[in-house]
């Protein structure tokens, strides 16, 4: 069973349908017991960092998610579900995250970087991923220069650079995916990235 965490942050339907397309058993849930017992866990989400932490807190999901991840079972974070893993987020002030990955989440800032073209925020649309780690099981059969769909104004800065699985260029290179043991998490939306993204969901389901 793949459990998708519902904590009031955005469209979960595409993630669910993406897994169903490959015949995986999937449930959307906000029940802590489901999270404790599932084989695989997906934390999606769009919106503001602190609202998301509040949403998890109110539903008493923080403990179960942290426990799930430390159990070693496969975890997939998407967009905000990547950012929440970090120690601190700087969206509307400083907020504590789940503190599973040491590092911070900061806003794009292009002032004074000398780029000719003005770069818009949010970073919205299709951009390419550059692989920084070999043998990533989630990226099996995904081309090295694949385009993925992004929509975000903040990005993650992990302290341990060895967990960076892919980077993407927007003004400068930023971390677009991390992979640390059983933790896989993407800044882009596999569920919105057509075939390349669906392949990633299939790979995760097959872990």
């Amino acid at each position, binding site marked *: 069973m793949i459990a998708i965490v519902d904590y009031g942050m955005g469209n979960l*339907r595409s993630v669910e*349908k993406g897994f169903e397309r490959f015949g995986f058993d999937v449930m959307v849930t906000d029940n802590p017991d489901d999270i404790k017992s599932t084989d695989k866990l997906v934390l999606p989400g769009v919106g503001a960092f602190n609202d998301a932490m509040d949403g998890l807190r109110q539903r008493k999901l923080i403990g179960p998610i942290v426990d799930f991840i430390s159990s070693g079972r496969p975890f997939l974070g998407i967009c905000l579900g990547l950012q929440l893993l970090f120690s601190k987020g700087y969206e509307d002030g400083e907020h504590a995250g789940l503190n599973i990955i040491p590092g911070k989440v900061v806003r794009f800032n292009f002032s004074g970087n000398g780029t000719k073209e003005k770069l*818009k925020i*949010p970073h*919205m*649309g299709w951009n390419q991923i550059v692989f920084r780690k070999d043998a990533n099981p989630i990226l099996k059969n995904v081309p090295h220069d694949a385009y993925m769909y*992004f929509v975000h*104004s903040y990005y993650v800065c992990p302290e341990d650079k060895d967990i960076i699985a892919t980077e993407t260029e927007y003004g400068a290179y930023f971390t677009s995916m991390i992979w640390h043991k059983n933790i896989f998490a993407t800044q882009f939306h596999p569920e*919105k990235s057509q075939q390349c993204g669906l392949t990633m969901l299939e790979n995760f389901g097959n872990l």
Partner: protein
Amino acid sequence: MLAKRIIPCLDVKDGRVVKGTNFLNLKDAGDPVEIAALYDGLGADELVFLDITASHENRNIILDVVRKTAEEVFMPLTVGGGIRTIDDIRRLLNAGADKVSINTAAVKDAEFVTKSARRFGSQCIVVAIDAKRVKGNNDRTQWEVFIHGGRTPTGLDVIQWAREVESRGAGEILLTSMDCDGTKDGYDVELNRTVSESLNIPIVASGGAGKLEHFYDVFTRGKADAALAASIFHYREITIHEVKEYLKKKGILVRNK
């Protein structure tokens, strides 16, 4: 680097696509889900549904269309038309839309933009602006905001209005030139450039696409981040694939599947 986006727009009325139904090999040419899947296969970067359903009792049909589309097509989907309340937005997002486009309701109550961005995040709040050229002071070109599908002038200046909705949390502007819409003579390059240079959020250019060069113009001189078109794609005058091949040859970064 970030690719320029090509976005087909479908006008949907009472759950049916109302124009551009002469696609070949479609079982049901008026079925938005089937057309969405077709555009997906042709390399569209996003889809926009514009709901032009008039009667109030049929307004829930679009939710079903969005739900079915989100099951078939794994790409970003924006829905606009008749969105007035936070609850309208919530229902569309729950059905599977990624973004909603607000037009008249934003002008009538700018606070609606602030509230929806705060509630759902800027990334899913698109403000659609219908712009028409007017003579300003010293014959300087200006654009005025129109609402109610372009029928009602508001007296608002497009640049000022665009800046305001950006500061209120809009994540993107869908900018339609009423002067160019339907002409096939090209996008309003000056309008797009002026708004794009005044703002930090992405601009989707709309209205006037007729030839391949028009896409090139609006991305280069017009500084648009995405280009939307309806009829030329519906009537297969130009395919999305042709647009992308053309742009790629001219050195514009577009996504190839």
